[in-house]
């Protein structure tokens, strides 16, 4: 496991805000040379700490006004293949994330839709018809914050 110092944590925080910053620009911010900053970023990538980039889009500006989190319980456990369920649920375009969880529900899904009527269509036609889908609980997202967590 990789150990981080304060500068590594600052670099990670900065790249989490804006991953397009060059090593030179980041180095100037933290009083490091371009090669020294590049080596630190490379080390974080090689260790798998930075596992990629994500494009941040404004869902609302693209017409997706509603995000709903679904807790899904599988019906008839043991008779349904988890692989079949996972493959089918991952193929739904409106489903953004699928997490296999342990607890009250078996899966946690993040679903986007244009509005509540569109969400109802996705829920009825695509989610409820999944192989093995049982009880479903929906919670409409009002606000969301990502925090720096352990690199803060």
């Amino acid at each position, binding site marked *: 496991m990789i150990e*981080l110092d304060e500068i590594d944590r600052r670099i990670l925080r900065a790249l989490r805000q804006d991953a397009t910053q060059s090593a030179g620009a980041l180095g100037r911010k933290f009083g490091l040379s371009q090669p020294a900053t590049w080596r630190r970023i490379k080390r974080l990538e090689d260790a798998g700490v930075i596992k990629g980039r994500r494009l941040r*889009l*404004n869902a609302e500006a693209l017409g997706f006004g509603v995000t709903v989190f679904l807790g899904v319980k599988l019906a008839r456990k043991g008779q349904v293949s988890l692989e079949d369920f996972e493959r089918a649920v991952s193929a739904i375009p409106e489903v*953004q994330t699928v997490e296999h969880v342990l607890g009250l529900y078996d899966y946690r899904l993040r679903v986007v839709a244009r509005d509540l009527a569109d969400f109802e269509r996705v829920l009825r036609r695509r989610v409820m018809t999944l192989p093995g889908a049982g009880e479903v609980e929906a919670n*409409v997202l009002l606000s*969301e914050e990502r925090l720096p*967590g*352990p690199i803060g």
Partner: protein
Amino acid sequence: MPCLFLKNAILVNFMLDDLDRRILRHLQAEPSLSGAELAERCRSTQGVCGRRIEKMQAAGIIEGQEAVIDWTALGYAVEVSLRVTLDKTQARAFDEFTEAAREVGEVIELQTFLGRVDVRLSVLAQDMSHYQQVYRDRILTLPHIADIEALMHIARVKQDEALPI
């Protein structure tokens, strides 16, 4: 002004053409594509693609790119989703709870909901005994909690968070 911005955003939304959508789809799938690679995949030129991206950035459609961190590589093997119901008889329950939860270093996500669950926290821990310690000392001491349910993450099956464009 915010109203004007919103109008612009909606206007641009209706004007997104096929090429804009192709650019967004390819960039979503692979944000680190170079200008040349992106242009080739979108069957366009680098100049045209670059201008379209600038336009979508100006309209607030493309907000930026963020590095994705793998917490397990930093030694955080446990992730738990805590679904919290708050005591809504307290007028400031939401504000006071979220304010205090932001201060907990192991919390990486904070979401509020309309539904049976009021707030959800994503909590990281190094192992189960660390989790137990965080849960007892930092989470259960947060104000106005009426009920908590925990979902333990086993695996991420799909995690790109892509929009269906």
